[in-house]
């Protein structure tokens, strides 16, 4: 970290002379490829709404952790994983449409979270940071956790990426090639649950879904194959993170919101310049 601080001290960027900004930049350089990668498969697998529901369940887990006096993030991770597994189990045994079941789980999680957070007349104010997020408050220790998570997701992508693509685009074909479709889907669901829950501290519940959907949604507009899809998705997430951080610093607005708005602009531009690929 000292090397990272010294590097930016030597450069003529006023906003990066503050340690908290240097931390935020490093965190975003780790979060952007993380969300860029996950985004590709969430969009291809039509799981955008589900990842939003996972964010809600993470909030509920945090509320449970706070009320029980346990580490909120650890409880939230456990709760989100349980939520994801329970959803997968119910979905495989129900004839209801997936978006209906997600609505059931999502609204239940939000209601439970708010109920627990306000139990006994408690104030909701202390939970605001989980709603809006604050990447500027990230600590070097948390950056270390983020680096480990990114490394784990990258390894997971290299080992399971091909299976995930096949299961996402055509489950029946994947099954005929000997892949365990449900197991693959469940492993990916758990992976999203863990990342979403860890990231909620910094990007916030309200911004989480835009970061999980918009990079890949924009990349789809201009990509012909998986290599371009992944490349553009990570590139757009990085671009929006850097511009968003700068804009939020100069205008004094929420960094998460600024990044999301940058992603929205990138999506609009990609939509205008989308290729008629064939």
């Amino acid at each position, binding site marked *: 970290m000292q090397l990272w601080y010294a590097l930016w001290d030597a450069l003529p960027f006023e906003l990066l002379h503050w340690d908290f900004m240097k931390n935020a930049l490093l965190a975003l350089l780790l979060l952007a490829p993380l969300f860029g990668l996950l985004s590709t498969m969430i969009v291809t697998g039509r799981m955008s709404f589900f990842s939003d529901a996972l964010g809600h369940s993470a909030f509920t887990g945090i509320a449970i952790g706070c009320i029980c006096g346990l580490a909120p993030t650890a409880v939230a991770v456990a709760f989100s994983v349980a939520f994801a597994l329970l959803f997968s189990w119910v979905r495989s045994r129900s004839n209801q449409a997936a978006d209906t079941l997600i609505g059931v789980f999502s609204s239940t999680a939000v209601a439970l979270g708010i109920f627990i957070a306000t139990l006994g007349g408690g104030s909701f104010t202390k939970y605001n940071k989980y709603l809006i997020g604050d990447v500027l408050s990230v600590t070097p220790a948390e950056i270390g956790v983020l680096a480990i998570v990114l490394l784990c997701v990258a390894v997971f992508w290299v080992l399971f990426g091909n299976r995930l*693509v*096949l299961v996402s685009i055509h489950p029946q074909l994947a099954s005929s090639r000997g892949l365990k479709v449900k197991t693959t889907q469940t492993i990916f669901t758990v992976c999203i649950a863990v990342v979403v829950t860890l990231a909620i501290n910094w990007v916030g519940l309200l911004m989480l879904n835009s970061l999980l959907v918009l990079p890949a949604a924009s990349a789809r507009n201009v990509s012909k194959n998986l290599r371009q899809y992944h490349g553009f998705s990570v590139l757009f997430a990085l671009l929006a993170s850097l511009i968003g951080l700068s804009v939020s610093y100069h205008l004094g607005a929420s960094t998460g919101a600024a990044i999301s708005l940058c992603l929205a602009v990138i999506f609009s531009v990609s939509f205008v310049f989308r290729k008629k690929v*064939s």
Partner: protein
Amino acid sequence: MINLFHSGGCHDSCCLKVQNVTVRIGGDRILKDVNLHVHCGQLVALIGPNGAGKSTLLKTLLGEREFDGNIIFSVPGARRAKARIGYVPQTPNFDPGDPVSVADLFNCCLSRRPAFLGASKSDRELILECLDRVHGEDLIDKRVGTLSGGELQRVLLALALEPMPNILILDEPLSGVDIEGQTGLMDMLDEIRRDYDLSILMTTHDFSMLSRYADRVVLIDHEVKCQGTPEEVLGSAEFRTAFRMKEGT
């Protein structure tokens, strides 16, 4: 799971035997005592009304359904044989918006290298070789969601042929393909089964192709109602009953 093992019976060629196979889903009996015998190099067409259990039989052969009875694959000279099955699924719809090229699809199925890194030179050569079998080398960089019905069937056929299977199963390969494409696809299947001596089992609702291409036709309506040459089955009373046709139509 299907236990495909040698049990004798086909002395001069490999064959697939389905013996008294019964499939139940929930409380319903979808297939009852189905018996089939398919020799290598034969093209066998499964026909029957909608909901007759054709796709269920194919899924049973693929190991996706529990069943009672025996499914046996045998190879001459081998005491124990395991069948390699190639499968082309029914109405394979891909999202036109998915940025997945034909090369990506092959990479995901055949290569250990992550598809998002792109195909290596050797992988690309293998993909072109596979596509060459179905005369589709020019499709390699196209997005799978933008392929026509006929092009998609050719790509999935090429995929099912790598590694080369003993048995090729196709679920309604002619649906969604225009007349010219149907003839082209059937000519290709005919060429492949002769070149590679593999069994082809396909379901179809298109009876016009049967006389020209099928060695045997099996009429299924939850059980085998009739089987024989295309002429025998299409002229049978069971065929007319199954499809509610009047005499002379």
